[in-house]
């Protein structure tokens, strides 16, 4: 009896400690981001508190066509193209790696995910020298290709993980019922691993949308992406417009995450909590 009650007391302390720890972690992660947001509404032109007054001038500034909106469109265009490519190639690679076990399979996986492990500056340098030789420097194609390579590992990893939980018996069932391999993929495999693909695609998108190092090496001013522009802004004229843009991006990213979560819950409901 006594033993039992001390146990629960211990458990209670542990639970309080755990909650405090989690709360503090969240605070340290999120507070710096939130702390900067008010400055985007500053009427002054420095990144500092206290703010002289309230103003929407920096939002007005970042919603001007040049340079902000133009680079935003560049970023979106590049990120969307890179995402489509990375998702398609990554999904096919993951599927192939799951259904066939061949010698050297581990090596292939290692090569595919190497952009995640190799320091980005090394990747960027490599890409720079290679693209210089083949004439892809300062082109959208070049930047899209580089970002595809950076995003594909996320797709491969998430789709591989999703396929682990996918019942391969369903593929056999489908083909025994007369479906050709592509029809099976379209009607059975794809719908069931779609959540994994979507997660991978989201990571690929964010990777490209956030990417600055490769853009620094490869992009000429015509392909400047948003992060590249912000980077330039940090160096040249540091004013709250960067914070205003960051705030918009935070909103945008949060929105994507919320939509993803809603989609995930929906599929989970359809699948009856499998």
């Amino acid at each position: 009896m006594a033993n039992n009650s001390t146990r629960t007391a211990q458990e209670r302390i542990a639970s309080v400690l755990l909650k405090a720890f989690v709360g503090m972690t969240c605070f340290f992660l999120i507070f710096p981001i939130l702390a900067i947001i008010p400055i985007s509404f500053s009427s002054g032109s420095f990144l500092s508190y206290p703010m002289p007054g309230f103003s929407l001038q920096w939002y007005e500034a970042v919603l001007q066509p040049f340079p902000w909106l133009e680079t935003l469109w560049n970023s979106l265009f590049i990120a969307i193209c890179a995402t489509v490519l990375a998702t398609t190639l990554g999904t096919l690679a993951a599927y192939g790696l799951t259904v066939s076990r061949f010698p050297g399979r581990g090596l292939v996986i290692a090569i595919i995910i190497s952009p995640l492990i190799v320091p980005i500056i090394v990747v960027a340098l490599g890409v720079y020298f290679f693209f210089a030789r083949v004439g892809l420097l300062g082109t959208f194609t070049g930047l899209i290709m580089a970002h595809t390579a950076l995003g594909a590992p996320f797709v491969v990893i998430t789709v591989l993980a999703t396929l682990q939980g996918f019942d391969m018996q369903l593929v056999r069932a489908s083909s025994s019922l007369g479906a050709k391999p592509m029809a099976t993929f379209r009607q059975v495999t794809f719908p069931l691993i779609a959540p994994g693909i979507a997660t991978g695609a989201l990571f690929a998108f964010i990777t490209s949308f956030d990417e600055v190092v490769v853009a620094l090496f490869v992009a000429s001013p015509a392909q400047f992406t948003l992060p590249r522009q912000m980077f330039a802004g940090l160096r040249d004229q540091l004013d709250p417009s960067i914070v205003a843009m960051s705030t918009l991006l935070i909103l945008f990213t949060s929105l994507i995450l919320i939509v993803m979560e809603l989609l995930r819950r929906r599929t989970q409901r359809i699948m009856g909590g499998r």
Partner: protein
Amino acid sequence: MRDLADTAPIVQFRGIDKTYDGDVNILEKLDLDIQQGEFVTLLGPSGSGKSTLLMILAGFEEVTGGEVLLNGERLNNVPPHKRNMGVVFQSYALFPHMSVRQNVAYPLKQRGVPKAEIDARAEKALDMIHMKEFGERMPTQLSGGQQQRVALARAIVYQPEVILMDEPLGALDKKLREKMQIEIKHLHEQLGTTIVFVTHDQSEALTMSDRIAVFNDGKILQIGPPSEIYEAPNCSFVANFIGETNNFSGQVTAQSGDACTLRMANGAEISGQNILGARVGDAACMAVRPEHVKLDLEQVCSHALKAKVTGVIYHGDHIRYELDVPGARDVTARSNAHMQDALPEGQEVYIHWDMDKGRVLDPLSGAEGAA
């Protein structure tokens, strides 16, 4: 009973060899003919290669040697989706993102059947398995038995030439399993389709099959109608795997025509049918079903064995006696006597059986002896 004798086989396995790793032979020189409309059961212990043979027929596994024929044509390089066979998996393998109706319509959709016909045929198939009201449900909202029935409907709706079932009832409880056995048997009679059924449940095999193929170690030991498999096993493995059997091991001391005499370890002699042509001096084992073992208080014939009742177990419709017989292990007898007439424990008796009920087969190997 169908007349199967003079129709051409629909499926033929010829000298099938199969190895997964190039080292261990899972199937060895296996031959099997399956007749049109037949219900054939592959029965055998776990790992004996039953599923492997079924998956070869379905096209999911390639043979290492030999050939598979469907209606006399080689199937070896035909992919699964062109084989027109229905497969029912042990795990059901229903598509979780499709409703029951969509699952059943799926094979028809792949064949480009017109929409109206798909609806009508899916409806009919659902009706056959008594699942009409469940068409809009998702598979996860069904019980195991219901899921199994949907899997069945999905496999018959396109009228495949052969239906393959790999332990389709393994996951169901006993009562439901018996009900589904009857339903599958009924479907088979209605449709007349050839069915190849895999199980390791011998009573399932005995009740459902036209013929049973008993597997062990990648070989078919015996194939025949259930009554033949049960009453006339051709080796000790089959005798022990199907139903209960008493084993009396010994050495052949005399042989005349169909009969022979066996001397057991303790010197007692018994006689029975010489099934495998054993010769004097060979080691052998006589198999006797418990229901053929007769108990008497006096020695009524010369070859009766002395025994002692060590257990009396009441089973409702019959009584099971456990007997201690010098020279043999784990001997049991079945009696239809009423409980009030049962022999008491500790009773000394004589056991014997009709000559033709004792089958002299190959000597037991270690594993079977222990079983």
